C-alpha cells in the first residue's frame, strides 16, 4: 500500500516554527519545526513522553506555546482558542477517547456539525425555519457521508458509553470528520484496537485522505510502525522535545540516528500484527 507522493501537493497547510512548550521548567517541546503539506498524511512518532501529544495540543490550541509560531493555511494562529481553530478547519481525535459518553452516536456526530450550523436560541427553541431545516440537513450529511463511510449503521442510536472501545474510536473519528476539516489530527487512533479494527481504521484514514470527497490532510500520532510506514507520506520523529528526522518513511527507517534512538525501544519496528 505504498503510494508516496500520490496525493500531496507542495502547498504548506500547517507550519510549526521553533515551537517551545514548557511545563514549569521541563521543556516538552524545545524548538520544533514542522511543515505539513496539503493532502499528505504526516505521522509523528517517538517514544512515550516524547511530546507528541503536546505537539497535537499546540496545533489545535489546547496549549499555547511559550515561544514560536503556529501557522495554519498561511495565517498565524498562536492566540486563537481551540474553538476558533476548529472553525478554521482543524479537527482532532484524542488518545484517550473524549466522547460525550451519555449521548447517542448520532448526537455525538451532530455535535461535530456544530460549526456548520447557525441556528440560535430563538429558532432552536421554536423549532421552526432555520433550526428545523438545519437539523434535517445535518442528519442527511451525517448519514450519507459519515455513518455510511465508517459503517456504523447498526449503532447510530446507541449510547456511546455502552459501545466497545473499537467502535468508540470509530465514532470519535466520525465526530471529527463531521467538522469537514481541512486538517485532521489523529492521536493514536489505532491504540487498543484488535487486528481487524486496525485494518478498518487504517482503511478509513486512507479513504479520508484520498477519496475525492474528503481529501483531508492528516497528522497522525501512532505507535503501530507497520501502519505508519505503510500509509504516511512523511514521518516526523520526535524525541524528548527535539526533532530527530522528518522525511519520507523509507528515509526515516534508514536513518541511523533513529535506529540508535530507538535501540531497545521494543515497539519501534514491531507492530501489533
Amino acid at each position, binding site marked *: 500500500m505504498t503510494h508516496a507522493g500520490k496525493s500531496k501537493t507542495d502547498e504548506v497547510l500547517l507550519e510549526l516554527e521553533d515551537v517551545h512548550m514548557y511545563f514549569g521548567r521541563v521543556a516538552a517541546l524545545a524548538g520544533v519545526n514542522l511543515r505539513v503539506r496539503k493532502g499528505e498524511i504526516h505521522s509523528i512518532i517517538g517514544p512515550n513522553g516524547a511530546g507528541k501529544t503536546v505537539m497535537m495540543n499546540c496545533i489545535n490550541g489546547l496549549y499555547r506555546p511559550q515561544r514560536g509560531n503556529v501557522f495554519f493555511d498561511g495565517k498565524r494562529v498562536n492566540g486563537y482558542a481551540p474553538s476558533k481553530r476548529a472553525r478554521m478547519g482543524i479537527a482532532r481525535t484524542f488518545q484517550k477517547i473524549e466522547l460525550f459518553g451519555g449521548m447517542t452516536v448520532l448526537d455525538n456526530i451532530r455535535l461535530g456539525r456544530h460549526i456548520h450550523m447557525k441556528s440560535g436560541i430563538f429558532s432552536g427553541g421554536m423549532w421552526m425555519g432555520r433550526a428545523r431545516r438545519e437539523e434535517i440537513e445535518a*442528519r*442527511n450529511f451525517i*448519514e*450519507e457521508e459519515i*455513518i*455510511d*463511510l465508517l*459503517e456504523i*449503521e*447498526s449503532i*447510530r442510536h446507541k449510547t456511546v458509553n455502552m459501545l466497545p472501545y473499537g467502535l468508540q474510536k470509530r465514532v470519535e473519528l466520525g465526530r471529527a470528520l463531521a467538522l469537514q476539516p481541512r486538517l485532521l489530527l489523529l492521536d493514536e487512533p489505532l491504540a487498543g484496537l484488535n487486528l481487524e479494527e486496525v485494518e478498518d481504521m487504517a*482503511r478509513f484514514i486512507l*479513504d479520508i485522505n*484520498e*477519496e*475525492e470527497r474528503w481529501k483531508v490532510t492528516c497528522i497522525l500520532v501512532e505507535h503501530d510502525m507497520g501502519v505508519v510506514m505503510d500509509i504516511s507520506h512523511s514521518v516526523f520523529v520526535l524525541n524528548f522535545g527535539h526533532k530527530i528526522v522528518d522525511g519520507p518513511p523509507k528515509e526515516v527507517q534508514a536513518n541511523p540516528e533513529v535506529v540508535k534512538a530507538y535501540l531497545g525501544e521494543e515497539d519501534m519496528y514491531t507492530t501489533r500484527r
Partner: protein
Amino acid sequence: METKITKDLTIPKLFVAKCRQYGDSKVAMREKEFGIWIPFTWQDYYAKVKRICLGLVSLGLKPGDKVAMMGDNRPEGLWVEMAALCAGGVGVWLFRDSMSDEVKYIIEQSDTRFFIGESQEEVDKGLAIFDECPKLEKIVWDDPKGMRNYKQDCLISLNRLMELGKTLDEKEPSLFEQLVAKGRGDDICLLFYTSGTTALPKGVLLTHYNMLTMGANLMAVDPCKETDDFVSYLPFAWIGEQMMSVSCGLQVGYTVNFPEEPDTAMENIREIGPHVMFAPPRLYEGMTRQVQVKHMDSGWIKRNMYTLALKIGYAAANMKFDKKPVPFYLKIALALANLLVLNKLKDHLGMSRLRKAYTGGAAMGPDHFRFFHALGVNLKQIYGQTEIAGIAIVHRDGDIKFDTVGTPIPGTEVKIGEDGEILCKSPSVFLGYYKNDEATQKTLLDGWLATGDKGFIDEDGHLVVFDRSKDVMTLSDGRPFSPQYLETRLKFSPYVQEAWIIGSDRKYVTAVMCIDYAVVGKWADDKKLNYTSYMELSQKEEVYNLIASQVEMANQDLPEPAKIHKIVNLYKIFDADDEELTRTSKLRRAFVEKRYKQIVDALYQDTDVIHMDTTITYEDGREQHIMTDLRIQKLNV
C-alpha cells in the same frame, strides 16, 4: 390484480404492466438507508430497470446470455436482475459469502458474460477469477467505497452503465419495450445453483412460466394484498427469496423492503412488521431461542405472566391442531393473554402485523412449530425445492398439522414412488440441469420430479416428509428414523445451536452438540464461571451437565432405541464457510462424518475422552491445528 398466466407472459412483461398500473402512486420497494426507509415507487423502479437493461444491452448482452449477480439484499439487486431478464438474459445469483472456488465454478459452468457485484469485496472475487473464465467480459460494481484505485478495463460502475443505458434510450426510445415484448414464457429466466449437500452445485434451469405459475398457485391458496409489506433479507440466491420478492411480489404488487445491513436485518424486520414472511427454520429457531432466554432473565411478574399466557396459547393452539372448536372460556382467556402478553411479544419479534409466515428449506422441529402457533402466529410449512421453482406443498389455513408439510398447491400433483420417494408434477417443474443431462434424466421421470426425499401421505391427504433418502437412519431395532427430527427436537433448547445425530446401524444413538455461545456464555456469567473462548466454555463440566439435562428432557418422549446415549460438545460451531453446512444451513452429514471421524469412532468405544490432535485445512487455505481433549458424557437412559 388477477393475473392470467399464459405461455406468452414473462416476468418482464408483468413487470412493465405493473409499473404502468401503479406508476408513482404506489411504493414498489423501500430500502433502509441513511437511517430511514427510503421509498421507490413503481415508476422509479421502472426507470432504473430500463436504464440498467439498456446499459447491459449496449455492453453487448444478447438474449440467453448469463448475468451473474452477487451482493446483499438491496433494491439494486432486484433492479439488476429485472434488467437482465428484460434484456432477455438469464439471471444467476451467487451467495454473497461464497468462496472464490465456488464463484469460479458457477461462473465458468454457466458461461456467464457479465458479473455484477455490489461492492469491492465482490469485485475482488470477480477479478480473482477473471483470467480463468474466458467467457466473462465485464464486471459491474455499484458501491464506490474503496474502488478509487481500481482501474481495470473490465470494470464498469453501475452508474456508468446507467448512463450508457440512457444514451441508448435516447437513441432508440422504443428499444426497451421491444426487448421486453420479445420474451416468451418458455424462455429460461433464472439459472439456480442448488446448494447440494453432497456433490458440486448443479444449475437448475427455470423458465418464466415456471416462476409465474408457482407464484400464482401459491397466491391462489394464500392471497396477499397489494398493501402488504414484505421484508427481503434472505439471500437472493435462495429460491424462496426469489419466489417471494420476484414471483409473488410482482403478481400481487406488495412492497418489498430491504434492510440496512445484514447485521441489522432482525431489527429492521421489527421496524417494518411485515405481513408475510418466508424463512428457513433456522431463523424461527433463533427467535424461539431468543424468547426463551429473555424469558428466563425477566423478573418474577413478567416471567409468570408469560408462562401463563403461553399455556393458554398452547391450549388454544392444540385445539386448532385437533380441529376442535375453541371453547368460549378459552377464547376469553386467549383474548386476555393476547392483550397482556402475546401481542407485545409478537411486537418484539416484529410479528404483530404478520398474517402468515412460511417456513421451508429444511425440516422444522414440532416444538418450534407449536411454539409459534401458541403465540398466535400463523406459521405454515412449505415443501418444495429449487427444481420445482420453490413450492409444491403448503399448509392451508385451519388445516395445519405440525408434523406434516400440508397439501399440494393447485396445479401440483404429488405421489409416492415405489421406494417411498416423493414425486411431484406441476407446471413449475424445471427444464433440466444446465449442461448435465445425466442428472436431469435421473431427476425428471416423465415430467415427474424425483425429489430425493422419503415420505408418505397421511389420512388427511397431508404429505409427511421423512428425510432425505440418503440421510434416513436405521435404528438398532431396524426401524428407519429421521436424524433431522431428533436434531430439531434438541435444538428447541435455547442452549443448543446445532446438533448432529449419529447412530445409523449402530447399537445406540449419540449426538454431537454445538452450544449457543451467547446463551450459554450468559448462563455461565450468571454462574460465575470463567471462560475465554468457545472451546473452553464448551468443555466445562457444568456446561456438559446443562446440555445433558436438555438432551435428557428431549429423550423422554423418544422411543427406546432412538434415545440418545452419549453426547460430545464440539469445540466449534458448524459453519458453512468450512463446508460443514450448506449455504442454506443444512448439515452436510457425509462431510462432517469424514471430518470428525475420530469423534464418531470414540463415541462407540468405551472411552470418556477424545484426544483431538488434527490439522484442518479450510476452504480459504487457513490451517488450524486443533489439540484438545473432548469429554464424552454418558446420559441416564
